[in-house]
């Protein structure tokens, strides 16, 4: 009991004694695990390599400066591919996420059989990183932008569907009930009762995912799925560090731009 009688006084404590001990024990175990893991990592580390890390980093830094601005002309095309890959992939993912979310939300799902299937699609899509999707797709449909676009799309389905179905489950049911009470059909109830309520969430989720996808699509070239990752990969393997630094700058610039665009769009919608 959190309330106990001691010396005739009614005292109150936040937790029972047993619960308090359990919490202390949990903290103890947590700290012990941290200490053991740290010592394990330390044993496996070659410390001389780590100790000269500052020199190595400084050395690499020196070799990266100044960026090789002359090669920037060759980067526009792969950058354009990257942005296209992200945008088309997002469109594909969002388009597929809408029906999945509709089936996954408890209050709109057409049948109890479809709901677990939709949930499985969401989990499957979310648990596989887009880099791994790209790796598989490159072997299936060959290298290029198409593989990257589909990889981005498949990864986006789960993310968008999960956030969207949570938004659908949070809508105000009385508005839906009111539309149903007018004698509207099921499709009309969705269009008038559900869609207006989830529209801001839907727009926000799509733009947010597009912003993430711009960043993800920059690395997909590393596995042959097209975009800015391809020249980055070849620059690293040929040790052309001035080129690498230029590509990294271009990537940073595009990510900043996409963040700015998505922030503006979200502001305009909400």
């Amino acid at each position, binding site marked *: 009991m959190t309330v106990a009688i001691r010396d005739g006084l009614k005292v109150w404590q936040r937790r029972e004694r047993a619960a308090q001990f359990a919490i202390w024990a949990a903290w103890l175990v947590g700290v012990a695990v941290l200490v053991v893991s740290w010592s394990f990592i330390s044993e496996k580390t070659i410390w001389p390599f780590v100790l000269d890390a500052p020199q190595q980093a400084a050395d690499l830094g020196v070799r990266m400066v100044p960026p090789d601005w002359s090669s920037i002309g060759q980067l526009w095309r792969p950058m354009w591919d990257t942005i296209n890959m992200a945008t088309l992939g997002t469109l594909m993912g969002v388009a597929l996420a809408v029906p999945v979310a509709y089936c996954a939300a408890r209050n709109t799902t057409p049948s109890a059989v479809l709901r677990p299937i939709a949930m499985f699609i969401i989990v499957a899509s979310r648990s596989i990183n887009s880099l791994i999707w790209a790796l598989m797709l490159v072997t299936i449909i060959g290298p290029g932008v198409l593989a990257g676009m589909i990889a981005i799309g498949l990864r986006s389905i789960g993310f968008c569907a999960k956030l969207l179905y949570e938004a659908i489950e949070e809508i105000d049911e009385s508005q839906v009930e009111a539309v149903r009470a007018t*004698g*509207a059909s099921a499709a009309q109830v969705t269009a008038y009762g559900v869609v207006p*309520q989830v529209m801001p969430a839907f727009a926000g989720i799509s733009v947010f995912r597009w912003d993430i996808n711009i960043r993800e699509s920059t690395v997909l070239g590393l596995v042959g799925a097209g975009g800015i990752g391809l020249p980055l990969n070849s620059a690293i393997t040929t040790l052309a560090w001035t080129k690498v630094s230029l590509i990294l700058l271009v990537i940073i610039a595009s990510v900043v731009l996409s963040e700015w665009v998505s922030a503006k769009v979200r502001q305009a919608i909400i």
Partner: protein
Amino acid sequence: MLRIRGLTKRYRTGDLALDKIDLDVAQGEVVALIGPSGAGKSTLIRCINRLVEPTAGTIALNGVELTTLGKGALRRARRKLGMIFQEYALVERLTVMENVLSGRLGYVGFWRSYMRKFPQADIDEAFRLLARVGLDHMVDKRADALSGGQRQRVGICRALIQNPDLLLVDEPTASLDPKTSRQIMRLITELCRERNLSAIVNIHDVQLAQMFASRIVGLRQGIIVYDGAPDGLTSDVLTRIYGEEDWSATTKRSPEADEDADHEEPGALEPAPLDRDRMAGLT
């Protein structure tokens, strides 16, 4: 017109919300349904348009049995049952006009409604109704930009544009201040009189019920314990409905309330333009 026999509702939790209710409502009659929270008032009116499925009993509207209707037939029957809600239940992100026109969804096909291409006759009627309740200058406002009283007026328009035979009104004044409450109740009863409409009004406020309804039905634990004239609500009757309490302040209708009901808005029955300015100022 409406004929309810042996209506019973038992929720899946086992709670018996309605216990063999018999109720008749005549054409043009405004019935106030009073009773404590949990007495089954909301369940009763939701059983009529089957937002809640009744467990047993029959409900006939103008001779049509509602409880056994299939999906399509139920949708057609719902068009004749206008409903007004406690928290207005407007679609907040749609405009006033879209909310009013949503009352026509049962008559218009999906694509026409989705593209907002409602028949001109519906739009004419929407403008007429909005003018009648004093909101024709707010057509393009979004519902969430309106005050409580204005929202409830839009809710009334949405119910009336269905061209219903019966209005189901669920606590229309529960979220409104006393003055707006009276205006809304007056508007509902006036509109019922104009159109010879019947209405069942769930209401918590006994004095408001007495003021505006022609008949009072008292519900307690799913059973009708009073059915009669507003004047018949004595201390004994109120105790039967709500339980033991000092009812003297409620039964002895204050002279101030009487005066208010009779004289406050002498021009209330007059049509639009005058109405609009007056109501816009008040809400």
